[in-house]
């Protein structure tokens, strides 16, 4: 039995299981999490991500081993926890997704359009390369404190922009991130909503992404979470690694700074 076959079986079992769980509310997810303990289906995705990192790819047939995630070329351990941060070579603040995109283009010679064509899985997919890479890289920061860059002027302005965007109301429904995430102890339907303007709320959210979504059977990244929140706000599609996506993640990371990374998390 190969790895892919095991994954498909796993996805089917989890899929059927989660369909039952979804009809029973939030409490049952806690039970499910307790039952799994330290076991997280994301482990398969993490293995994939590591393989992808070391595999030669693209026109230059190069691996990502020389990719600098902020701690020097090839240093993956602890890299996720200090993102988003300023990168002098591109003169801008990047999150893990923008940085990986940059490395794929520079090191592997891939076309920008090719890299950004489909960063995130659609429902029913078995995961993208980006999702696998992010899962592995985040896992390499597990247990380390969230410590995004805030020394550079651009890092500071990314935070300020993120905060402004957090409160920006627009669209048919007048929603902003703050509509759902500015108060503690609230929920939408049965889903509990963290107050992302506080350290506790931001830390609880930021430290657990990327996450294995039980209801979707795949690992989702923080960039995907930003995009999907925008979809729910009735906004157009948020571009992976864009200035707004990076700024919002900077706002959350800085608010949650100091807490330990526990990603990939396990979520409904």
């Amino acid at each position, binding site marked *: 039995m190969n790895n892919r076959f095991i994954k498909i079986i796993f996805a089917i079992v989890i899929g059927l299981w989660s369909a039952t769980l979804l009809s029973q509310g939030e409490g049952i997810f806690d039970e499910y999490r307790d039952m799994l303990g330290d076991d997280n289906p994301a482990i398969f995705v993490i293995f994939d991500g590591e393989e992808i990192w070391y595999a030669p790819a693209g026109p230059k047939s190069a691996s990502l081993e020389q990719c600098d995630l902020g701690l020097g070329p090839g240093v993956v351990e602890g890299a996720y926890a200090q993102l988003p941060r300023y990168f002098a070579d591109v003169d801008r603040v990047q999150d893990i997704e923008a940085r990986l995109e940059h490395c794929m283009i520079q090191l592997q010679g891939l076309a920008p359009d090719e890299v950004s064509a489909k960063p995130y899985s659609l429902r029913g997919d078995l995961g993208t390369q980006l999702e696998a890479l992010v899962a592995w890289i985040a896992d390499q920061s597990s247990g380390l404190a969230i410590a995004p860059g805030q020394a550079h002027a651009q890092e500071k302005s990314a935070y300020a922009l993120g905060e*402004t965007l957090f409160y920006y109301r627009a*669209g048919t429904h007048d929603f902003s991130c703050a509509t759902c995430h500015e108060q503690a102890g609230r929920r939408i339907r049965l889903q509990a909503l963290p107050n992302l303007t506080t350290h506790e709320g931001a830390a609880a959210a930021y430290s657990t992404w990327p996450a294995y979504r039980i209801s979707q059977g795949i690992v989702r990244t923080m960039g995907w979470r930003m995009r999907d929140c925008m979809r*729910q706000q009735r906004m*157009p599609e948020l571009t992976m690694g864009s200035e707004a996506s990076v700024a919002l993640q900077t706002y959350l990371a800085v608010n949650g700074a100091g807490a330990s990374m526990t990603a990939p998390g396990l979520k409904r």
Partner: protein
Amino acid sequence: MKTITLLFAVMFSNPLYADEVYEVLLDSMVDKNFVTVERLKQDELQAFCSKPRSEKVDEARAAELREAALEGVPSPPGGNYLGDWQRGEKVAINGKGLQYSDDPNAANGGNCYACHQLDPAEAAYGTLGPSLSGYGARGQSAAMLKYTWTKLWNTHAYNVCSHMPRFGAADILTPQQLQDVMAFLFDPTSPVNRSQP
């Protein structure tokens, strides 16, 4: 002098950062299905309300916006506030509509349960807004009907930076759907007004 006053008014209603932020959003987002970047542009009310709850508001400006919202609320078709509660219940349950993943040809939902408790037998309700269970018992007077219709049509007529969508004013729900939701809230036989299980 007039130009200066006008300039002042423009600066006051649109914080200086707004254009800059709008540009960032335009660069960061793309059209998807029927949802275009046109939605990123703020109207006056949205710009005014894009601040933390804790921040003090300009009361004079808030009163102006409240007044403008109130003026724009039409009477219900045929003068009837109450439609069919059974259809209204479907609107309240339906959370779809106007997301790029939704079918643009299907009727929009009101997604009321996302934020409010309504039928006390429904466990999956949100708590971003107050509970509306037993709403009909709050009174059935003409004033109460008009108040509720106005609240649904454009919540900012009463509470300027309320987080509730402008279901009528923003064309999210049709007048008929709003009449049906009104009946769901007020009708004595509606599940909203049944006793707690």
